[in-house]
């Protein structure tokens, strides 16, 4: 069979091309690699080379012809002993076909719908473990709870190590890794130079190779240096490798505004990471959640972001004394049950929600306060069930409004519980501005109890 020379696809997007000129004529002898023609695409003029030795039998399409669809035969090469009569000339070039000729077989006939639920395939997430009534509890700060979570998991699993700036000798810029160097030594508690992107990538590589790194970012503001490795490497490689490569890594550190540290040191990345398929994202509020969720994150075979909050580190609460206190990732928690309005929030903004709820209960408004705890997966079921009961929803977050967590919750609620809503959903967010340094301006820019009360009054049609 003579060798067909077809209009080649010269780029991923090329659909048709033009033969600018033939550099051979019929009857010429050519060797593999010899230039046959110049092909012009919308981007470039490219030389078309012979794929095999032979004789130019027939030039099917004239030089100067445009819009030749990719894969159309444009010439035939005769190999030893072949004659012109062996050529079966394909029909003249057709217009650009709409679809590739042979459809690629698909496993399932049902394409996933993009318009229904924007969440990944729902997984059934277990409830929090039942604690026996006599479970031993200890009062701890969030800081201590996080430290214990790491220490317990390091005792349990040799593969777990902690790496970051100032985590070892200094015991953490915010003292979260206190005592870890003493107990586990410099092999497993590792100070690094100031190299966020490097540590994130090194952590990903170590995780690919089976270790379980806990990468501390001094704050998540600095993880922006590393965000490429977090997203392009940690989040996507399991998928890109068809499930061959796993990345059991934890990225943790304080997230969000502290006090007057200005725009570059105050950012809330909740929505950023919640956006990324392949990551799990938790944002614990209480000490016991901090412990249970960090332990879950370390045991999870996927990359997990643990967004802590500097201003919550010293806050104390009862924490179960148990090496196996593991919380499910992806479950919200009702912090306060109520019947009139649902407040949904996470991390430090819950302070404002709880205060507003207390304040308004004195005025007869009964608020239900939901702590999302996990931002991916996002437990919309708990929120929807609550809204079906209260018929009103206020979302509260420190991050910016545009494409934020509140926007995502609103979309989920209006789609699943539209008929239950008695008022438009109202969002309280950080203002749409880089965070200012001046005391008065900073206060204005962040969510506050007053702003939450105002929003509740709005959805309840009350005069404040």
């Amino acid at each position: 069979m003579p060798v067909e020379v077809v209009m080649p696809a010269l780029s991923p997007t090329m659909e048709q091309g033009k033969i600018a000129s033939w550099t051979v004529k019929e009857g010429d002898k050519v060797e593999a690699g010899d230039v046959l023609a110049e092909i012009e695409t919308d981007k470039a003029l490219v030389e078309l080379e012979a794929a095999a030795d032979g004789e130019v039998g027939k030039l099917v399409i004239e030089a100067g012809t445009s819009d030749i669809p990719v894969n159309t035969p444009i010439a035939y090469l005769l190999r030893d002993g072949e004659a012109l009569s062996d050529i079966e000339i394909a029909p003249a070039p057709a217009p650009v076909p709409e679809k590739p000729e042979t459809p690629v077989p698909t496993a399932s006939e049902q394409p996933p719908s993009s318009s229904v639920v924007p969440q990944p395939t729902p997984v059934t997430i277990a409830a929090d473990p039942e604690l026996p009534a006599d479970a031993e509890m200890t009062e701890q700060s969030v800081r201590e709870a996080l430290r214990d979570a790491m220490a317990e998991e390091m005792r349990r699993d040799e593969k777990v190590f902690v790496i970051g700036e100032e985590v070892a000798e200094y015991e953490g810029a915010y003292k979260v890794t206190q005592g870890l160097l003493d107990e586990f030594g410099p092999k497993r508690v590792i100070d690094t130079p100031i190299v966020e992107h490097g540590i994130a990538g090194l952590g990903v590589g170590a995780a690919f190779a089976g270790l379980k790194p806990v990468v501390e970012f001094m704050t998540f503001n600095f993880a922006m240096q590393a965000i490429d490795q977090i997203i392009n490497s940690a989040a996507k490689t399991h998928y890109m490798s068809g499930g061959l490569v796993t990345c059991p890594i934890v990225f943790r550190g304080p997230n969000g505004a502290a006090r007057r540290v200005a725009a570059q040191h105050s950012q809330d990345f909740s929505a950023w990471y919640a956006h990324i398929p392949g990551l799990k994202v938790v944002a614990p509020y209480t000490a016991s959640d901090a412990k249970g969720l960090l332990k879950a994150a370390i045991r999870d075979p996927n990359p997990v972001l643990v967004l802590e909050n500097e201003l919550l580190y010293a806050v104390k609460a009862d924490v179960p004394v148990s090496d196996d206190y593991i919380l499910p990732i992806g479950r919200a928690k009702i912090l306060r049950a109520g019947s009139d309005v649902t407040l949904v929030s996470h991390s430090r903004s819950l302070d404002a929600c709880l205060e507003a709820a207390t304040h308004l209960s004195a005025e007869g408004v009964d608020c239900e306060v939901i702590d999302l705890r996990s931002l991916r997966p996002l437990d919309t079921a708990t929120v929807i069930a609550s809204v079906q009961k209260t018929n009103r929803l206020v979302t509260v977050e420190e991050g910016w409004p545009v494409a934020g967590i509140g926007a995502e919750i609103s979309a989920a609620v209006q789609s699943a519980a539209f008929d239950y809503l008695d008022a438009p959903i109202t969002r309280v967010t950080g203002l749409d501005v880089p965070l200012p340094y001046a005391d008065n301006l900073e206060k204005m820019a962040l969510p506050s109890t007053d702003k939450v009360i105002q929003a509740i009054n709005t959805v309840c049609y009350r005069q404040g």
Partner: protein
Amino acid sequence: MGKKPVKQTQKTNKIMREEDLVSSYHDMLLIRRFEERAGQLYGLGKIGGFCHLYSGQEAVVTGIAKAKLPEDQMITAYRDHGHILACGVDPYNVMAELLGRADGVSKGKGGSMHMFDVDKHFYGGHGIVGAQVPIGTGLAFANAYKEDKNPAVSITYFGDGASNQGQVYESFNMAALWKLPVLYIIENNQYAMGTSVERASAQTDLSQRGRSFGIEGRQVDGMDIEAVYAASLEALEHARSGKGPFILEMKTYRYSGHSMSDPAKYRKREEVKDMRQHHDPINMLKDRLIERKLMNEEEAKKIQDEVFDVIEQAANKALENVEPDSSALMTDIYVEENHAS
């Protein structure tokens, strides 16, 4: 500052002029006193957030300020009070920024870490370790783009800790490849927060960090203003004359903690004390001035008193300045007029 002088194209005197030496004593003291006052105000809760003091490192910016041309730009990290003062900005506006007041250089929006004065060619004030290095390289790119015979040089400062960030090396490569007029000043104060250079750097001679790109570098005693001046004069000339970037590693020392809450367990008190007693850049200069009879004790005292008063007045006035008006909250996010041209 009086009349605009005839445009200089290059300073040539390798030895500091006598009047520059005496004014350096004043300028360094001004920074020192400013930082002491800032430290006090922080302690009183008047300054919030992070506040990184420059005490101990004054000879670096002061020596370079004497060697640079007015249009040479400067850019640095968050430890920026000394840099903006060395650019000649009024301490009142710098203090007002620290206090988060309306007359602050950045209108109270940036605070300690984000000082700017574009008229004085000071481009900040950056909070992300290492990020100012490519930006400073970009200033140099713009300088080269203008094709002046004697381009301005971008003086790009960063710390020993920052010198390990990847973007520093991306910058070095571009600067060398395109022969950009940039002077990299590594302020090696021996620590990055609680981490000493030895614990963070495989190659501790930071002046050699540009070698694989063919960038010349030199270590300089950053506590000796005359050494700083001479080295930077030469390095600036190199960069200005089209030979590309130059690296000066200034060996210096920070007296204060990293920011205001620093347990300082990573170094010994005696180490700080020894530096203060035997290597203090201001005292060293004073001794020299007296020895060379360029100043006597009385004149020194006069300068000290004058600086004290200037800072006192600046601080008191700044404390009386109002907070920014609430209408300032949502301005400056975008350029407000249409600047299309």
